[in-house]
């Protein structure tokens, strides 16, 4: 006991600056993350909505009058008679996988391309980063115009080569393909830059050694580049998955989840269900908790898989 206290004291004497630096972060994270999270989890067990939460309307102060209703929100969302949760979850899976896969492979390809000595490399890099620099909502609106069935630039161009106007955002499969394509367009630059950074940290001696040993360029890519990128790849794939899973603006602004529910993913569906009409905060919280849970489970398994393959992370 005494030794523990003594160790703590010694640790404080030695590392007091580290503790001092951690305190503001802890406070801010507590205020911005932990408290809302706990509150959200609590709300998901209640029937809170716009009618019964506290509000101040001028002189009128209405106190909270919602009740704890246990797991009813969860059973409603997961197993309710008109619940679309599972079909939306399945679509979210397709969306997330397609987006992350394309983000990573295209980003990797572009990064490898841009890592070579190339005339005008700086210009390419700037141009390729552009989609990422444009605010997402502007991209979404711009693409919505490009993809419009009547008077859209894309259909106009396709008309020029004899392909009839396609209803890009108005038919189920095409709408999903379109929003995935736009999300890929928006997200590839980040992957490219991150991987480019990773590529530049691979020592060139490794490539020289491989070349001396007679490795083909494919073999060099496979046995030097990819292993060298492992840490970066692991991080960006995890980030990309979480971002795609939660990518709200592209879908919401381009199709609103439509036509019907054809492009609805969990976050957009949660928003529409909870905030259309009288706002259902409990339902929104329930979706929030479910989404976080899914992502936590995913991240845990992902990290465990990485660790199993020898990655310390």
């Amino acid at each position: 006991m005494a030794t523990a206290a003594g160790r703590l004291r010694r640790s404080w004497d030695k590392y007091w600056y580290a503790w001092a630096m951690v305190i503001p972060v802890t406070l801010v994270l507590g205020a911005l993350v932990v408290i809302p999270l706990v509150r959200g989890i609590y709300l998901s067990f209640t029937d809170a909505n716009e009618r019964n939460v506290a509000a101040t309307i001028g002189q009128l102060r209405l106190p909270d009058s919602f009740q704890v209703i246990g797991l009813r929100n969860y059973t409603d969302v997961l197993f309710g008679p008109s619940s679309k949760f599972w079909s939306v979850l399945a679509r979210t899976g397709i969306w997330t996988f397609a987006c992350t896969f394309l983000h990573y492979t295209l980003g990797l390809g572009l990064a490898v391309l841009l890592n070579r000595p190339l005339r005008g490399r700086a210009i390419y890099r700037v141009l390729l980063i552009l989609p990422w620099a444009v605010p997402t909502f502007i991209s979404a609106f711009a693409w919505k115009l490009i993809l419009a069935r009547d008077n859209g630039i894309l259909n106009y161009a396709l008309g020029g080569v004899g392909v009839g106007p396609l209803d890009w955002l108005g038919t189920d499969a095409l709408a999903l393909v379109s929003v995935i394509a736009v999300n890929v367009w928006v997200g590839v630059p980040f992957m490219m830059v991150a991987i480019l950074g990773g590529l530049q940290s691979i020592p060139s001696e490794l490539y020289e050694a491989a070349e001396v040993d007679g490795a083909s360029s494919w073999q060099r890519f496979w046995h030097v580049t990819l292993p060298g990128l492992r840490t970066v790849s692991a991080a960006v794939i995890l980030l990309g998955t979480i971002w795609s899973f939660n990518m709200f603006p592209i879908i919401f602004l381009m199709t609103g989840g439509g036509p019907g529910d054809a492009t609805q993913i969990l976050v957009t569906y949660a928003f529409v269900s909870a905030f259309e009409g009288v706002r259902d905060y409990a339902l929104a919280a329930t979706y929030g908790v479910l989404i976080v849970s899914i992502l936590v489970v995913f991240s845990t398994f992902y990290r465990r898989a990485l660790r199993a393959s020898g990655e310390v992370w």
Partner: protein
Amino acid sequence: MRERVEVAWVLAATMGLSAGLLAGCRGSSSSSSSSGSGSGSGSSNHEGAGAQEKPVTITWWDTSDSTNEAPKFKDLIVKFQSKYPNIKVDYQNIAFDQARDKFKTAAQASTAPDVMRAEVAWTAEFASLRYLAPLEGTAASADLGDYLPAPLSSNKYDGKLYGVPQVTDALALLYNKALLQKAGVSEPPATMEQLKQTALAVKAKAGADGLYLNPQGYFLLPFIYGAGGDLVRVEQKKIVVNGAEAVKGLEVALDLIKSGAAPKPDLNSGYNQMQAGFKDGKVAMVLNGPWSVADDFTGKAFADKANLGIAPVPAGSSGKPGAPLGGHNYVVYAGSKNLPASYQFVQFMNSAENQAYLAKELGLLPTRASAYQLPDASANPVVPKFKAVIDKAVPRPAIAQGGQLLVPLDQNYARAIGGDKSPQAALDSVASDYRQFLKDWN
């Protein structure tokens, strides 16, 4: 030491100041609300607000079209300002499609505007959430008997009056006279069957699309109502959107598209495409409301304003035309710090004279019977024609969930147009969506 004293001074001064400010706010707001909240104290408001002594500022959220309509509303504010110099109006134009959400967020936090232009379907919802001040006995509800009954009905919730109708509207059949003539049709179609034949004739002979259907639920209502159907029956608490009549109405609309009388609409920007085509003379007929007329006149097809024809929506199988009654109401925020001034503002804006002015300038339809008698109102040829439409239009349900009824209809109308769902299946899913928020209905 010296510094510390100074800091203490500054602290004390700011605290004192903010306390004073808070007290000031509380003082002024409680005095205004005590004179304005109850309907019993109403009579004093009539004069009380007119003789506003201390200058106050009220905020008005206008949701009208910011390019075509807003300037005329601002004209009225200038007039108001000269009549009531002590009431300053902070005019804010809020995009219509975001206004409902913004208002609700602001209303919960006590930061909502004093006066709001609310769509008819929002009024009951806001009132049910206690965001609105009741208007009986206030200056805002002066000459209540002068209002047309149908637009007024959307302002009543739970037996109380929470707004006064600013403008009323209904869908009508707008048509390009020249194109119809080219197709050899002299009279606008009066039934859905004639609508189809006319549209096909235009397509065959006039080199334009006969009809463009905006694929939104609101624009489907004439078909549902026309066939004798409805979304819900309020007095029986019954969901009837998937009943046989409504399904028949949807089938009529789909048949217009399938038969080629109307092109397959753009599901994402249908309204804009409809307007673009109609204004350019590429579309001969549309179903649209009086709000669109000012926009139509900016198009080359209506450079000659006389070319725009206005007729009631064609009658469905029930034999009657069924246009949905729309419009907007003036509502006053319950938490307003300047209730008397807000009531005064609503009264002024909604006077018969000012309604007639807006009718003359914009073709907006007055909600007061007496406004139609004024020369200004009949000066705009659109107004008398729409008046005939309004008189037969179908009011929408004034229930708290009224604003939610159209979203599922939007989605499933699109599904039916896309061919993904049969008419019955599409309306069945609308009904199933309704059950989520109309819990104890059958």
